[in-house]
């Protein structure tokens, strides 16, 4: 058995530091959204479980542990929930050892108790995580309003499992580090201190026994995909994090036990509380993360990843092309340096990891949350695989810009912010002509090349850019036709530029040698029709069209895509001004 003063070890009994006679058995899981960590604590008087977790196997593991403890000598069992989200308890709902009346007393903050007893699928997140949920009896309501009138006075409570406890609310108010506090004593054993720490959810609590502090999901409450969950509160979270930081500093806490991930030292926890508080303070006015938003975000994640896949493969391919040409020119050193600007193997592995995850996960869970979070993880890593500024000086900068914008837009949406955009009245004709001109000219003109500085570094940059950036419309005849100039419409210029670039790229990429862009004023507004005859035909990915329709909405209009007899057309309509 470990000595008790070192870091807690998973799946091992060890002393609880600062609580003589108490032992703890942590079940630390690999981080996921399905189930939390569990902790079992025994004293001579009681067996305590903190968060039984969200998967049945974990519940069975816990019931075997409890059975063994009770065989040693029988004691009452209490299961405390740090909060009533399903990933912290649903694993025991079908477990006989927990479901038999009177066997285990569930102890939950009274707000969570109300949700559990009526089977509230929203508050418990059963809805968003697509978990079945039955109403649950809560034997011990923590921070019950009826005890507020007797603050400081101990109350004795008896339970059907034979337990007798003493509970006191705010036992020493002046001593409390600003968090509502209750203390429970099970016989003569060590006290269990509870602190109300809302923010992640209204019913979140932290528990302290000896020098250990159990914090549930407090440390992740500002994370993308977690912040904004129904019941989340920025103001409460900031206050709770300050309180938890003080608890760690002033109550002799040496280790902090989170709901997910490894146990951390008090020093690390203090730094994390401070960082999470800063994150939380930046999250004003985020949208609620409910099931509808989770579904929409997961759908956007799938669409974004499809485009990210294509853009990153094209960028990596373009760079491979540049290094190929440099090799041919005998510039092996420069070829090697250029190849290092993008980690192609890492990109392939990340894109495949997402694809495999999406394929596997859709088979076993209808919940949109894991896919949404996996996409964020992959996009975060993708962002670190390419050197954006250097690449934009070599290959087509619109590729780099759109890839970067996709990654940033997804994280913005996941965090619950509105995507940046500003609709303004613009004359569509010069806007479109400028986009087409930009896609027809090389990155550097012949004049710029000839008048450039005459040193080796500058020559290398010019050479690389000349090889790597081929204007998209270089070999394509692109005609802009209109009879309605000027044609004013409400659009977001950046999103519209991206939309038109994606469309032109799609047509060029499928071999269209001639592209027509017709701009006209119709009954429904300003309409732009982009058409091309495809050299390569076949079934196309519907996700691309869904992505483009979403982008068209962000650009300020709507998009209709048609394909017939090799003729591909995109019709964008925006409100005329």
């Amino acid at each position: 058995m470990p000595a008790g003063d070192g870091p807690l070890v998973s799946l091992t009994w060890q002393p609880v530091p600062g609580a003589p006679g108490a032992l703890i058995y942590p079940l630390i899981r690999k981080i996921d959204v399905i189930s939390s960590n569990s902790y079992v604590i025994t004293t001579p008087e009681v067996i305590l479980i903190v968060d039984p977790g969200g998967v049945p196997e974990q519940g069975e593991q816990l019931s075997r542990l409890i059975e063994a403890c009770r065989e040693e000598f029988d004691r009452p069992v209490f299961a405390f929930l740090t909060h009533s989200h399903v990933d912290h308890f649903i694993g025991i709902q079908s477990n006989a050892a927990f479901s038999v009346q009177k066997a285990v007393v569930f102890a939950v903050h009274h707000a969570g108790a109300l949700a559990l007893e009526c089977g509230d699928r929203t508050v418990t997140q059963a809805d968003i995580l697509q978990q079945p949920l039955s109403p649950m009896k809560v034997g011990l309501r923590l921070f019950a309003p009826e005890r507020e009138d007797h603050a400081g006075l101990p109350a004795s409570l008896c339970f059907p499992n034979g337990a007798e406890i003493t509970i006191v609310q705010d036992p020493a108010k002046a001593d409390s580090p600003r968090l509502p506090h209750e203390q429970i004593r099970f016989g003569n054993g060590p006290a269990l201190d509870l602190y109300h720490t809302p923010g992640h959810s209204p019913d979140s609590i932290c528990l302290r026994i000896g020098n250990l502090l159990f914090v549930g999901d407090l440390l992740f409450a500002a994370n993308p995909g977690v912040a904004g969950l129904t019941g989340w509160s920025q103001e409460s979270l900031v206050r709770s994090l300050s309180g938890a930081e003080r608890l760690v500093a002033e109550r002799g806490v040496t280790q902090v036990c989170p709901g997910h991930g490894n146990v951390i030292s008090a020093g690390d926890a203090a730094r994390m509380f401070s960082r999470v508080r800063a994150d939380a303070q930046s999250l004003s006015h985020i949208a609620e993360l409910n099931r509808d938003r989770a579904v929409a975000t997961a759908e956007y994640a799938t669409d974004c990843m499809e485009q990210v896949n294509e853009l990153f493969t094209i960028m990596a391919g373009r760079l491979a092309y540049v290094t190929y040409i440099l090799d041919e020119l005998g510039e092996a050193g420069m070829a090697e340096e250029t190849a290092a600007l993008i980690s192609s193997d890492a990109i392939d592995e990340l894109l495949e990891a997402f694809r495999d995850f999406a394929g596997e996960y859709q088979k076993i869970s209808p919940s949109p949350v894991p896919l949404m979070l996996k996409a964020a993880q992959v996009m975060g890593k993708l962002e670190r695989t390419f050197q954006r500024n250097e690449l934009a000086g070599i290959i087509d900068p619109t590729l780099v810009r759109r890839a970067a914008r996709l990654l940033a837009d997804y994280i913005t949406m996941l965090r619950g912010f509105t995507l940046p955009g500003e609709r303004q009245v613009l004359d569509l004709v010069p806007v479109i002509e400028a986009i087409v001109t930009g896609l027809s000219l090389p990155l550097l003109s012949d004049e710029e090349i000839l008048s450039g500085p005459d040193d080796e570094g500058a020559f290398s940059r010019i050479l690389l850019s000349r090889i790597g950036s081929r204007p998209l419309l270089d070999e394509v005849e692109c005609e802009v036709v209109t009879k309605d100039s000027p044609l004013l419409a409400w659009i977001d210029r950046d999103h519209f530029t991206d939309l038109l670039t994606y469309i032109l790229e799609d047509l060029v990429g499928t071999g269209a040698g001639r592209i027509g862009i017709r701009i006209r004023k119709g009954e429904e507004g300003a309409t732009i029709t982009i058409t091309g005859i495809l050299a390569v035909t076949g079934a196309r990915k519907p996700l691309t069209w869904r992505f483009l329709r979403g982008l068209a909405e962000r650009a300020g209009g709507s998009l209709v895509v048609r394909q017939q007899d090799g003729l591909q057309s995109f019709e964008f309509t925006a409100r005329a001004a």
Partner: protein
Amino acid sequence: MDIRTVHREGGTVLSVNGRIDTTAAPELDHAILQEIDQGNRKILLDFSGVPYISSGGLRVILATAKKLKNPGDKFGLCSLSPEVFKIMKLAGFTSIFSIYPDEGEALARW
């Protein structure tokens, strides 16, 4: 991914079926190298069964183009899906080697 190799009069055709991802790219590389080692220096890759190509796959194709540039060598791709053609086109590969609509047309031109 699986690769079927057929030796025709005009050249060797490797018909690839499946995604060319990080696992499949080295397999494709190996299959092509085997043919080149045996002296078959007119290689046509039939991609009619390839829905996806990774950057690792693109590098294999570039490496092959590099190996088959002696006088008399031939290297090309045929029957590309729209998705794969788009990647090849926008990455700039279509200026390095030829892409044909189908096997018949490729071998007829060789």
